[in-house]
Every structure is written in structure tokens, then in C-alpha cells.
């Protein structure tokens, strides 16, 4: 594997990792914009705009866009998070020029009024669909409460009201402000020649407006609290608990990641043995999520309503023990072995490399090879985990509960 990098005069950065042993090539435009960059009256616009990208450009109609992607047999899609809007596709190398042209083109869609109105209906359906998924309702309520007053507390989808009130003009303005070449990273992994990529980028992206966008990335200082969404029709209680963790730029993030595996992975972790293995819960996990300037540990729990408080107390007891005593050498070694294998397996396909290639650049302007990732993982010590726990102890400053419960007593 070989790393390449190039920046166009308008600021578009290309990061690429070539590998002639694979059969495909994956490329993605990472636009550094998402829910956190929205004002309240624009809530939902980043995600809505991601949908609108597929509704046609000056060169391609909406039918063309979907048709051509399918004609080249692309595995393609787009996603929107709190911080990044990503447009990506994986294809066979022979279709690279065609796919590049189309994928780069849709970042600058026409945004026609009638398409806007039609797609708004789809977005409203998507919001309703997620309302039927209790864990998603808990996630939204948790993020909102935990990051209250901070940009990260902005819903990705928006609400039926906020999206309903959005106008095409507001979206055009948002697009003009945020889709600037200096705010976009093109990541590409797999079987390709880098010279060809630079040529394609010059041909199709050179005219993009230059400029970057500053976003405030001050660390969130959550006040914490409880949000209870009572839904009598549910059988299970779904819970999200959050507490601060290291930010995406913090060296402690590697320790936080391995700690979350040791304490709350879906198998073989402390939470697993204490709650999932004995059948006390349907689901319980701890995850670590890093953002621009902030970070969070998130506990996920689904169980019978009447056992919720005791299960949360069990999890809390695990966290307190870990905060006090740390983890063991045996646990750390086991987690390293497990994660190392995941890294290798995921990296085998270009699509598996794309996200880490793009994210490393968007968040830290750095390249990390698979070997780099493995070396960092191997080098982690109990001392690193101790430092991380001292700075960011495990806990539950914020709780969101969705289900039949009307109240929840936390110990």
C-alpha cells in the first residue's frame, strides 16, 4: 500500500492509498459539514441536502444519477453525521473516470424547487420511520440532553417541524456557504493510479469555489440530567447514557477506544458477562464516540422496564470499579488481540479503508496506515488507560429513557 496526497489550488485535498492487490476502488468526498453546523431554523438541512445531491445537477438529471451509478455497478450511497456529509462509491477500476465525474458532480446539485418539495416528503417519512425505532428515539433524546447548548446537541434528521419549514432558498445559501473546496476531502483507496486521480480532480473539481469554513470546536461541558420519553405502547425500556470522553484530536482516544472494548464490547466484556450473558438484558454495550473538540462514552441498554434501575446500577458499579482499579493486563491483551484482528479484516477491502483514510484527514490532517494503527494498538499500556480514566472517568452524567416508564430513579 502506498500513500499519496495532493491539494488543488482551490483547497480540495486528495488523500489516497493505492493497493494493486485488490479488485476494486472506493472513493468518497468527505464534506466537513453536518448537524452541528446548522442554526436552529436550518435544523435538518445538511441531511436533506445530502438527499438533494441525488436529484440532479446541471449535467445530469435525477434519473441519470441513479441510472449511471447502477450502470457501472457501483456500491454507492451517502451519509450525514453531526460533523461530516459523505458521498461515496466502490466500483471496478475500469469505471473510475465515469464514476468520478458523476460522484463529484452531485456535490453541486441544481436544487430545483419541485425536487425540493418532493424530497421533503421522503425526509419527513424518514423522520417518522425512526420514530418507530425506540433506540433511535433514545439516541436523539440523549444527544439533545447531553449536548444541550452545544452545537453537537443538534439532531441530524431535524424534526417534522424544522424540516417542514425549510425553504429551497435557505438550502441554496447553506450549500454555497458550506460546500467550498477547502472544506472537502477526497479520499480514495484501492486499485488505481494516482496520476489519473489528480487529472480527474483537476478536470472535475478545479472550478469548485475555494474557501473553508470555521466551526467552533470548544469542548462541550454537559450539565447532565435525565430525559424521559414515556411511550406506553412499548414493551422494553431503551436507555442511552452519556458522559464526556476524549475528543477526536486527543491522544487519549486510543486508550478510550480499547477501554470501551474491555468494558462494554458486545461479547466478552465486563458488561457482557455481568448483564448480557446472564440474560438480564436484551442488549447492553458501551461505545466511545469522538467528535471535533469533544468526545463521549455512550452506554446502550435495552431491557424490561421493571429491571431498568437495577441494570443501570449494575453498569454503574462496573464503571466505579474500573474508575478506581483500572483494568487488568489480561483484559488489555485480549482486547488488543481482538481489535487487531478486526482492523486487519476490515482493511482488506478498499471500502473498509475509506472511512479511516478520510476521517484521519478530516479530523487530524494525518495519514495512518494499517501498520500504524496496529503499532499504536500494540503499544497501549495500562498506564495509558489509567491516564484516560483520570481525565475522563466512565459514568452516566446524562440519561435518556424511552419506553413505558414514567420515571426512573438512578442510584
Amino acid at each position, binding site marked *: 500500500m502506498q500513500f499519496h496526497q495532493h491539494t488543488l489550488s482551490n483547497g480540495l485535498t486528495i488523500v489516497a492509498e493505492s493497493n494493486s*492487490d*485488490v*479488485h*476494486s476502488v472506493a472513493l468518497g468526498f468527505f464534506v466537513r459539514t453536518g448537524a452541528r453546523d446548522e442554526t436552529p431554523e436550518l435544523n435538518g438541512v445538511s441531511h436533506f441536502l445530502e438527499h438533494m445531491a*441525488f436529484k440532479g445537477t446541471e449535467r445530469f438529471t*435525477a434519473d441519470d444519477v*441513479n*441510472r449511471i*451509478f*447502477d*450502470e*457501472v*455497478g*457501483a*456500491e454507492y450511497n451517502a451519509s450525514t453525521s453531526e460533523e461530516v456529509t459523505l458521498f461515496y462509491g466502490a*466500483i*471496478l477500476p475500469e469505471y473510475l473516470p465515469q464514476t468520478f465525474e458523476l460522484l463529484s458532480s452531485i456535490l453541486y446539485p441544481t436544487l430545483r424547487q419541485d425536487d425540493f418539495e*418532493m*424530497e*421533503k*416528503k*421522503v*425526509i*419527513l*417519512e424518514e423522520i*417518522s*420511520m425512526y*420514530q*418507530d*425505532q*425506540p433506540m433511535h428515539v433514545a439516541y436523539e433524546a440523549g444527544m439533545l440532553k447531553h449536548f444541550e447548548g452545544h452545537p453537537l446537541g443538534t439532531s441530524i434528521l431535524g424534526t417534522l417541524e424544522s424540516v417542514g419549514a425549510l425553504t429551497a432558498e435557505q438550502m441554496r445559501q447553506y450549500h454555497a456557504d458550506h460546500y467550498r473546496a477547502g472544506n472537502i476531502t477526497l479520499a480514495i483507496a484501492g486499485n488505481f493510479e494516482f496520476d489519473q486521480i489528480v487529472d480527474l480532480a483537476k478536470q472535475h473539481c478545479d472550478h469548485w469555489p475555494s474557501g473553508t469554513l470555521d466551526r467552533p470546536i470548544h469542548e462541550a461541558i454537559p450539565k447532565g440530567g435525565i430525559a424521559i420519553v414515556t411511550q406506553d*405502547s*412499548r*414493551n*422494553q425500556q431503551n436507555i442511552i447514557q452519556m458522559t464526556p470522553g476524549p475528543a477526536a484530536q486527543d491522544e487519549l482516544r486510543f486508550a478510550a477506544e480499547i477501554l470501551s472494548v474491555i468494558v462494554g464490547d458486545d*461479547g466478552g466484556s465486563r458488561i457482557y*458477562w455481568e448483564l*448480557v*450473558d*446472564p*440474560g*438480564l*438484558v*436484551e*442488549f447492553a454495550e458501551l461505545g466511545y464516540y469522538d467528535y471535533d473538540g469533544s468526545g463521549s462514552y455512550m452506554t446502550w441498554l*435495552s*431491557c*424490561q422496564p421493571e429491571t431498568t434501575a437495577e441494570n443501570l446500577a449494575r453498569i454503574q458499579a462496573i464503571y466505579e470499579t474500573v474508575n478506581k482499579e483500572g483494568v487488568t493486563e489480561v483484559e488489555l*491483551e*485480549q482486547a488488543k*488481540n*481482538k481489535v*487487531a*484482528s*478486526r482492523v*486487519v*479484516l476490515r482493511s*482488506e*477491502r*478498499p471500502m473498509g479503508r475509506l472511512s479511516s483514510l478520510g476521517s484521519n484527514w478530516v479530523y487530524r490532517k494525518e495519514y495512518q496506515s494499517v501498520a500504524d494503527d496496529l503499532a499504536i494498538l500494540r503499544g497501549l499500556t495500562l498506564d495509558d488507560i489509567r491516564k484516560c480514566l483520570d481525565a475522563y472517568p466512565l459514568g452516566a452524567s446524562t440519561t435518556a429513557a424511552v419506553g413505558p416508564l414514567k420515571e426512573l430513579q438512578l442510584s
Partner: protein
Amino acid sequence: MQQQSIRTHQFENGLMLIVEEMPGLQSAAFSFLVPAGSIYDGAGKNGSSAMLADWITRGAGTRDSRELTATLDNLGISHSQSAGSENITFTAASVADRITDGLEIFADVILRPHLAEEQFEPVKLGAEQSLIATEDDPQRKAMVELRKRSFSAPWGLSSDGSLEDLPNISAADVRGHHERCFRPNGAILGVAGNVDAKAVIEAVGKHFGEWKKKGGADVKPGDCGPKRTFIEHESAQTHIGISYDSVSFPDPDYYAAWAAVSVLSGGMSARLFTEVREKRGLCYSVYASQSSLKHEGRVLCYAGTSNERAQETLDVTLQELKRLGDGIDESELQRCKARAKSSLVMQQESSRGRAGSLARNWFFLEETRTLEDVRQKIDALTVDSILEYVNRRPAQDFTVLTIGPAELKVND
């Protein structure tokens, strides 16, 4: 398509092994099908196989549950085990040189599980929680209930089990399920990745050679559920499930049936996405998929939409399904072929994907099928051959199930 090196070997006890050497990869994987799926659960015991798939890894051979997990984690073997309708499937993937260690450990799991009494109650509680969670997820529930009404019993029953049967399943029932169903004759092991086929054959022979043959149970197809079902539910959307008859996996018409569904739902330029979502904005999620078993097949469709637009969504979706026989454009077929070719080539990057395919193909067809074989079959399809199939077996006699606040009218 790159030349593939696939070897098959049947052991004396009947265990079938299919190995593909993929020297370009760092990884290896296996997919182990044991004929112990939910169709063998028995009357009133639906869920036995799902519980067995959980219980079976909670201690085996010389290792207890925690030791087993620690050993697999330390070897970097990511694994899963689950019950389907026909088989319990064990999958594992790791860096290539660890995969034979994985086979040795799974020989303990499959042949020498502890199935300890004290682990049974936790398994049962876990199964119950998982079934209750499905009740809270109307989209998932719609598809579980649709399957029940689409395939003959016991194939249509949920492989997760049912809340009705769960209290009646004892530890002895689940041990009996293992005793009855776990046998080498009928079991299929697919291995793919950077491995030496000869070494794999030797390792499998060493670890599974002593497994004793036994007779299997014969399951006869029974009835399907009703054609029309409405489940009242206080949900934000109405969840619509539709199914109609199609062909089994071994059927000579399989690829034509696959292409017909692909025209409807293979990619974002396909008809359902275009007509229901892009042109009318009725749905976020709408799709159809080919679901073929060994002896029967159905097309299963789903659409989720807000309650006031549910009737229109159902009408438009049914209309699209029915009008397929009116004509298919050459360009639609070309897109199906392009997508298929691309996904076949990309399979060569995934040991997991290939191991699964090797085992599945043998289960359904009792033969190996190279990616090139599949590509040729897809290449041979023409608009006429697909239309001939669609008009011979048109989308009709629909099974429709809806979950939501109000019942819909089926205008078929």
C-alpha cells in the same frame, strides 16, 4: 473473472468440505452449516434451535464459557452463530494462519458442548428479551409475520422462536435438538482465504473425522398463514409487507426470477425506488427481495409510510409489481448485469463472503459454482427470457400484511 481454485472433499462420515484458496488475501474464514435449524424445532417448541445456537458456545471441550471467549478473542477469531430455518450456521474469520485453530475450537463447540444446566435459564431469558424487542420494532415484526404467511410451515416460522412456545421449551428439549440434529452427514463446511486446501482437509479430518453419522429427521411442508392480515399498532408509520410466489434456489428459472426482482428493486434506478419514492415521495424505505429456499421461493416486499399515505403506497407498489410483465427495457437488464458483475468481482476481496457462498451453494445445489459460472448464467439472460418467466409466473395472488393504526384495502 480471476481463475478460482476450489476443492471439494467428502469425509467418510458424510461431512462435506469445500475450500477455496485465495492467495491474495491476508485473512481466512469459514462458514459451517449444521442441519439443525428451526424447521427441526418440533411442534410447540419453536425457538429450540435459536436457544441451542446461544447455549452451545457457553462452554465446550475443556473450556468453560469465559475460557472459550478468551481463547477466540486472543486468537483474533471473530465469530458468530445463529439459527436459520434449515441450519445452525457457525461463521469465523481471522488472519489466515489462525483459521485452523478456529476449526479445532469449533470442533469442541459442535461435538462437545457442555450445555450445562446452570446456563440454560440465562439463555432462555435472553431469547425472551430478544423476542419482546421484536414486538417493539414494527418494521422487523412486519417481515417476521410476513414470512410466516408466505412460506409453508415450519419454514415460515421465525428462526428466533415465538413468545408462545418459549415457556414450554425445556433444557432437555434443547439437548434433544442437539442430539437429534447435529450430524456430519448433511453438514457443510465452506473455507476460503489464504489457506492451503490440503492442510485444511487434513485439519478438518483430524478434528471432525470421528463425528458419527446418524439418520436425519424428515420435515414435511405444511400450510402457510392467511393471505390478509392487519395488526393494529400505535406507530408513526404503517408498515406494509407484500409477498408473492417465486421459485426455489435450485430451480432452472432462478436467475430469471432474480433478474425480475432486480428490475424492481436492484439499485436506486430500479422501479420501486423510482416510482414509489423518487417520483411520489411516498416512502423512505421500499424494496423487494428474492427469498429462495431449497423447495420453494417467494418475493418479499416492504414499504413503510405515514398512515395517511399508506393506502396510496400499497396501491402504487402492487401496481408496479403487476406491470412488470408489460415490458422490460434492455437498459434495465444491462444495469442488473453490471451490478451483478461488480458484486461478483468484489466477492474476491472477501474471504467471509466467499466462505458463505461456498457453503450456501453446496447446501442448495450440491455443487460448487465459480463466480465465472454465475457470471455466465447472468450474461445469458435476455429481456425475452425474463419476460417469458414473468408472464408464466406473474406477480399475483398476493399475501399482504400491514401493521399500523388503520387497516388498508388490498386492490389487487
